[in-house]
């Protein structure tokens, strides 16, 4: 079966005066019909740029480099003309943003904003669009939607606003919803409600979801497959159960180590030292080298490919071919450098 979305060698570069920032650098993955795929990684690893690239919302000086392919329902979105692309957005693929306050226009009632999506794509009357908006708001669990629809964003709580954004993303019954950190700005209790809502709606409409987050807990709860991104690349790719049972890439290990566990009486959470390097200057060999606990000097210093490390499990780490180095953890290089340089 052909997947719903198939991304091959996606490269999104920002041509700035400081150099070419290779924010997304050769990313490939698929999303099947009705599947939920998670992309996880820390700030600056390229996950949001990947999401925006799918909808072609990259602003200059950024651009999707020639040769990248984003196939959705059999058409290549990269080469689609602007008008056709506009009809895909919000209609076939829609997006939920992180900040529910700033993603809503402050001077329009929420009903107007949900109905607007319908007006853009639906070719329906104002009245019909409004009715559908109220219906969709009800679907996302907003109480007394008729009255709420007339309210302005600042009159709603964060959780309510996120439901409005979900209603906007959902009203055209798209095939794919991209959720960029949809729960990051919310309280923990509301986070769970919103994730439940997304999953319930997904079941109801058979929508595929691409969930972008830095929170492995969210991934564990909703996703079937996980893509771990680091420095503009996919560094590990596996099913959720496989990834949590057998994390391979040291970066994935680090992400898991930095999650709090109930019952584990550790004084401090583990952190991955250092930060993602600047996208204008990715290291030539392994991009995680200086933050890695297992790094060792390889005379070739070649860039690691995605190794197969299990069934449907890939990892961009030389440990796949030289596993003995896992027995010699050490302090990452970045700490030694940091003492002098920073």
């Amino acid at each position: 079966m052909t997947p719903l979305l198939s991304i091959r060698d996606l490269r999104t570069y920002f041509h700035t005066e400081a150099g070419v920032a290779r924010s997304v650098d050769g990313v490939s993955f698929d999303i099947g019909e009705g599947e939920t795929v998670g992309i996880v990684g820390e700030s600056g690893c390229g996950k949001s740029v990947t999401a925006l690239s799918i909808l072609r919302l990259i602003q200059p000086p950024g651009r999707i480099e020639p040769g990248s392919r984003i196939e959705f329902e059999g058409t290549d979105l990269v080469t689609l003309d602007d008008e056709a692309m506009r009809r895909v957005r919000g209609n076939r693929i829609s997006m939920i943003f992180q900040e529910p306050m700033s993603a809503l226009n402050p001077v329009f009632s929420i009903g107007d904003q949900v109905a607007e999506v319908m007006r853009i794509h639906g070719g329906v009357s104002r009245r019909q669009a409004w009715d559908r908006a109220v219906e969709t708001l009800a679907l996302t669990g907003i109480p007394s939607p008729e009255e709420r629809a007339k309210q302005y964003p600042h009159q709603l709580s964060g959780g309510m606003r996120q439901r409005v954004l979900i209603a906007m993303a959902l009203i055209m019954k798209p095939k794919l919803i991209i959720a960029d950190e949809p729960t990051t700005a919310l309280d923990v209790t509301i986070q769970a409600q919103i994730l439940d809502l997304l999953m319930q709606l997904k079941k109801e409409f058979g929508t595929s979801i691409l969930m972008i987050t830095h929170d492995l807990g969210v991934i564990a709860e909703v996703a079937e497959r996980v893509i771990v991104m680091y420095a503009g690349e996919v560094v590990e790719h596996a099913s959720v159960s496989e990834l949590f049972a057998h994390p391979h890439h040291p970066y994935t290990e680090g992400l898991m180590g930095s999650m709090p566990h109930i019952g584990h009486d550790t004084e401090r959470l583990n952190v991955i030292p250092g930060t993602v390097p600047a996208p204008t200057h990715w290291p030539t060999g392994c991009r995680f080298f200086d933050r890695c606990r297992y790094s060792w000097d390889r005379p070739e210093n070649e860039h690691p490919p995605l190794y197969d490390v299990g069934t449907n499990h890939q990892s961009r780490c030389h440990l796949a071919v030289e596993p003995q180095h896992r027995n010699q953890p050490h302090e990452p290089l970045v700490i030694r450098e940091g003492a002098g340089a920073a």
Partner: protein
Amino acid sequence: MPGQTPDSAVTDPARPRHSPLALGVRAILRKRSSRIALAVLGVIVVIAVLAPLLAPYDPSAQPDIVSGKDLAPSLAHPFGTDPYSRDVLSRVIYGARLSLTIGILATLVSLTFGVAYGAVSGYLGGFTDAIMMRFLDALLSIPRLLLLLGVLVAWPHLSIGALIVFLGLTGWFGLSRIVRGQVLALKHAEFVTAAEALGASRRRILVRHLLPNLVSPIAVAATLGIAHVIVLEAGLSFLGIGVPQPIASWGNIIYDGADQIARLWWMSLFPGLFMVITVMTLNVLGESLRDVYQRR
């Protein structure tokens, strides 16, 4: 409240709507000074609208050029008469009509140009923006009065329509700067990206999402702009190159009496008072609007 989900604990649905317009109206009504200003301005507008009913005489009629001229204020002529025996009260009433009309129409012209120019420049950005802004800098470097004087001296006997257009065309530079700045700040707002992600076209984003967010600065600019145009028109008419005779505007009534200001004091005092009051009320209203919009 038991049983209520935490995120529904917000304001009750019966709360009134807060569109920018409603906010502005409430701001004006809340302050005493702006309430008074609104009332006074309302009276002047009513006078202007009902001019034919209120004016005791025809404003351009010269009933008795020999014995009816230069009469001091009396019961028959509360504001006196001018050197052509015309009734000053009637002229001031009709002048209100003309001065306000010129103020409003010229400001509409300014708003149209200023908002369109600024919005396009800010939204397109980059090279286009740079060119458009340098052109604006050039225009801004010439004082508005000088521009108008130049035009009016080059083309004397302009019709009132042309005068309105020229007043409007010289008044949009500052506003378009403000609009451009706001659009520039707003176009990277997340709700704009969100609208794009949902398939809104560029035109739709500009018209539906960006411009409505500019209501506040535009309302302030409009209110203050009308006041400015009224003063400018009076100034030009006073110099004899504004509204042509025998049509009455506040500026040219003052002009008619200017050379004998000590003797025919009523000719300058009454239209002048009306003008000062109108401009003051407009400024008070503009400041109130600015206060509430800037606080947000």
